[in-house]
């Protein structure tokens, strides 16, 4: 059994992986799609076994018929016996094909499921940068369309190719045993067809890869038109989106047509070549019969075996299409699977007091520095604000502090230990981060807040109270178990923001990073929330990016960040005296502060 399997393997690996360009550039040969099947040896063996059994018996059926006819013409015809043989064969074929179809379903679905698990596992271990780089839309294609084409390969290509090769080999042997000269002439068509396939598939493979990229492109346009549906309707730019889509769609159609053209040429060509083989039998075989070196019966047999030979060649042709697509998909999946896993050397799990220190931290985007020479210290339990203009690098700084992105240079210390020395689990459970953009999951409010698995009911309730969500929650039909929709579209901006705060607080963090939290919450609620934080989490080290000077006047420290650099740091009083930039910001908010003081 495995000889055959091996044969297919070698045959097809040669066919599809002989890309001379790639061989040169990459010393290590990329794993072929067949290597994917190794863990499923048993299932695949059963699959091929059942397929060959049913095919084998199907080959016997004509024998029974010819036996029936022969015995009738010889006057030795027994109906019951023929009926019995035939019925047994039919039932066996039915059983084997049915078994094969079951195994085939399980095998292909299992391969698909496991591949998806492996992919998601790999993705789940990646860094923020990887996901952004790899692009979520592309990863979605990997997990859906790419896996599907591999599924098709397992469910259809393997069986068809195994049985086809079985039939080709069988028919060839039979032909050779009848008349080797004629047989060789006929078998010569196999390499011709194989060569044609090889040439065409090499072209098709490129097109397949391109058409997958076009699908990514289509996805992107659809994605943006769905995510940006509101602004599209506000601007009435549906036509623009439609035009974008048509461009991508037309490209997809044209690629499809190019692929089709190649196959449209290939298939008739193969039929033509095999018809030429038929013609050869007629001419050469006819000649042999006329000269007496072959009997008429043998001549007829040649014809019937040719029919058996051609059909599997055609099947391989169709399946090569499937394999080419699956190989392209597998390559894309392999790229994700082979990306290096994140390596966390950190082992520290100790509980932080909340001291944070940055030493000369810098961050570059390509050539351009986003942050440079950032150094500051936060004492445990202190309150610090970061103020600065739009695009000063405030959010980036928080991303570095939360360990989402590594700094390009410089070091970060929590509790005197380098951030990398912490076990990620221990680190993230002590540092809470409220993102600037609202990120709400399509789950219940309870799950949205108790997002981490270490959250107790008690800390959940404390977080809800602190974020002033209790009134809101108690008015919901199913309280905490109310499911909020994706992108939180049935919540107001302020409600989303407060849910996100509660999510961070529910961790009972030692350090809390707030990114412009107050922007969407009215000042009244904001004040109460900050008081609550003060009362309920007294030891918390707070670092808050904000625009409002008024709310940070009593903070232990204010850091003024401009164009990626710290311009000044100190208390509000100090900065008012020393920093003209700070004074400018302060003045810009003066009139408002008056109002807030009055009220």
């Amino acid at each position, binding site marked *: 059994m495995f000889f055959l399997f091996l044969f297919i393997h070698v045959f097809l690996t040669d066919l599809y992986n002989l890309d001379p360009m790639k061989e040169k550039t990459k010393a290590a040969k990329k794993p072929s799609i067949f290597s994917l099947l190794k863990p499923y040896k048993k299932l695949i063996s059963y699959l091929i076994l059942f397929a060959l059994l049913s095919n084998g018996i199907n080959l016997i059926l004509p024998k029974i018929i010819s036996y029936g006819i022969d015995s009738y013409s010889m006057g030795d015809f027994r109906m019951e016996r023929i009926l019995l043989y*035939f019925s047994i064969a039919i039932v066996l074929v039915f059983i084997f094909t049915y078994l094969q179809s079951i195994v085939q379903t399980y095998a292909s679905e299992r391969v698909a499921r496991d591949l998806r698990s492996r992919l998601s596992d790999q993705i789940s271990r990646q860094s923020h940068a990887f996901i952004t780089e790899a692009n979520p839309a592309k990863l979605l294609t990997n997990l859906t369309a790419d896996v599907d084409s591999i599924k098709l390969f397992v469910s259809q290509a393997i069986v068809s190719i195994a049985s086809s090769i079985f039939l080709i080999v069988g028919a060839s042997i039979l032909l050779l045993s009848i008349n080797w000269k004629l047989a060789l002439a006929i078998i010569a068509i196999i390499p011709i067809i194989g060569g044609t396939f090889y040439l065409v598939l090499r072209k098709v493979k490129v097109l397949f890869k391109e058409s997958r990229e076009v*699908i990514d492109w289509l996805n992107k346009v659809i994605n943006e038109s769905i995510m940006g549906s509101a602004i599209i309707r506000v601007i009435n730019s549906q036509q623009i989106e439609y035009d974008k889509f048509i461009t991508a769609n037309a490209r997809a159609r044209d690629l499809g047509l190019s692929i089709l053209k190649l196959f449209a040429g290939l298939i008739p060509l193969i039929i033509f070549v095999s018809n030429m083989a038929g013609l050869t039998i007629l001419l050469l075989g*006819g000649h042999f019969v006329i000269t007496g070196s072959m009997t008429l019966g043998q001549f007829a047999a040649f014809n019937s075996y040719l029919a058996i030979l051609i059909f599997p060649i055609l099947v391989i042709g169709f399946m090569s299409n499937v394999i080419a697509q699956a190989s392209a998909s597998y390559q894309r999946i392999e790229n994700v699977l082979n990306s290096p896993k994140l390596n966390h050397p950190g082992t520290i799990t100790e509980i932080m007091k909340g001291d944070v220190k940055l030493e000369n931290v810098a961050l570059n985007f390509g050539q351009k520095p986003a942050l440079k020479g950032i150094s500051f210290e936060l004492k445990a339990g202190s309150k610090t604000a970061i103020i600065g203009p739009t695009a000063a690098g405030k959010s980036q700084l928080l991303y570095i502090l939360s360990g989402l992105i590594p700094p390009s240079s410089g070091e970060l210390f929590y509790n005197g230990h380098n951030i990398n020395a912490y076990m990620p689990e221990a680190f993230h*459970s002590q540092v809470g981060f409220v993102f600037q953009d609202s990120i709400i999951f399509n789950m219940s409010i309870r799950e949205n807040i108790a997002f981490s698995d270490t959250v107790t009911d008690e800390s959940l309730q404390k977080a809800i109270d602190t974020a002033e969500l209790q009134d809101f929650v108690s008015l919901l039909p199913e309280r905490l178990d109310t499911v909020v929709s994706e992108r939180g579209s049935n919540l107001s901006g302020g409600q989303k923001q407060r849910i996100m705060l509660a999510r961070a607080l529910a*961790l009972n963090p030692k350090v809390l990073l707030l990114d412009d939290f107050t922007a969407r919450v009215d000042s009244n609620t904001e004040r109460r929330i900050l008081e609550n934080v003060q009362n309920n989490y007294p030891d918390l080290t707070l670092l808050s990016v904000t625009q409002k000077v008024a709310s940070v006047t009593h903070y232990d420290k204010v850091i003024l960040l401009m164009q990626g650099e710290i311009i000044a740091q100190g208390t509000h009083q100090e900065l008012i005296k020393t920093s003209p930039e700070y004074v400018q*910001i302060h003045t810009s908010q003066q009139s408002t502060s008056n109002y807030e003081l009055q009220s």
Partner: protein
Amino acid sequence: MNYNLNKINNKEKKTSTIAALKKLLELISAEKANLWMALIAILVNSTLLLLGPLIIGHTIDAYVRTKQFNGVLLFSALLFGMYLITLVTGYFQTKLMGGVGQRMLYTLRNAIFNKLQELPVSFFNQNKAGDLISRVNNDTDKLNQFFSQSLMQFVGSIVTMTGAGVFLLAINIKLGLAALSPAIFILVFTGIVSPWVKKRNASNLKSVGGMSAEIQESLNNFKVIIAFNRRDYFRKRFDQANQENYKTAIAAGLANNVFVPVYGMFSSLAQLIVLSYGIYLISRGEFTIGLLVSYFAYATNFYNPLRQLAALWANFQVAMAGWDRITEILSLTTDLKQSEDITGEKSNAVLEFRDVHFSYTEGEEILHHISFKLEKGKTYALIGPTGGGKTTTASLIARLYDPTQGRVLLNGKDIRSYSPEERTQKIGFILQEPFLFTGTVRENIIYGNLKYKDYTNAELEKVIEKAHLRELILLFDEGLETSVISGSDNISLGQKQLIAFMRAVLRNPDILILDEATANIDTITEKLLAIILEHLSKETVLVVIAHRLNTIENADEIFFVNAGEVVRAGTMQHAMDMLLEGKRNS
């Protein structure tokens, strides 16, 4: 209106295969000529290929047996000619049929996308993005697979089958009927089983949609998963969706695979019938052995394509299930239609709410009895606690939704009577969550702006200068050419808001709504924005929603929005008092 695709009632969903097919065929009415040509190519091709064995048989009988090699040569030449013709017809058969499939897919995708563009915002709020994307991509891909791979075989098989069937009946009607009788069982079996198969495929496609939605959500928000240490949670949620998909896929796969063994069994049965009944007929002198042999050939020619159809039929059922899900989208219509103006009375205000009520879902009214007027050149502020209805009010001004009761008047005419072009030109709305398209800053700020579409950078810079936007452009590293990736963090939220702001200002609307549009922009830059707004036309109406009070202190009038009611606040002080006392009972 209910736009939730997963909750739309299934009453009308019982469309028959034929009805679904008819709808599908409407999409390719333009392809008639191509289909006819393809049919001719298929007929010629199949006829020639079916004639081949007959000619070979004749050559054997007439020339090989009689040892006349010249005759063999002659007929070989004839065959060669025929085969050359099939080379051409075969090419056109595949190319024409496949071309129809590809173009049909193209039309179909366009139709769906067009429909997506036509539907209102509510549709997108009620459906998960991942599920929608899966429907548009995955489900059309299922149709694609059918059209690009199976359709040709489908048609080819049917033609060969029909031809062989005609031969079977023509040679001997009795034996022909007997040979074809298993096909009737197959037909009945297919008829009974198909709806069940389709249903299983539909539920599989649904779980695929669910899985896509899950992936979409998690991947787009991956930073939260990292920061909250929930990688394991992501895996668990995904594994669940994956396992669910596995189950439905197995169910669908087992259903799809039921056809092949059954078709195979019945076609073998047909051979058995031909054998036994044929021999019976021969024994009664009604048939000959020679005819019996060719009869088997034709029976094979009938049942082999049928067996292929079995595999294709499953593909067809999958495609039909996908088509059903797509039709669910295509059959939706927008509830924001343009209608005749029926107000009759004129209003002097630029915009007026007249006793407006609104609810997102029936029975849960968000806004009650809202009436107010916005006048030329004035600035209005909407303030109030979070969740009080400010954004909803603004959305009604921009007609993202229609009021459930009452009327919104734009320049004295019902807002519903304006064409979308006219309306969106008059009303600008900077949304709370800025959205950018992948491209450059330039492309984003003139997005959908027909006036500046073809401006060169130099010309556009003049426009920017005139609108006092130059300083804002300078905040981007590479100015107008700074690249933007949708949904990524490569530019900050504040910068995104600046782009959205510029986009709206450059459109120069009559009414400009700013919904927390500058919330994440620093106060100094914000002063700049205030100056820009002052330079807008004297007639522009500004509607500002903000928490930060400095952004609203210049308002001519302040509305306090709370618990679904809009109250004129009079002075700033009064507004502040209300805000402080206001209980968030929304």
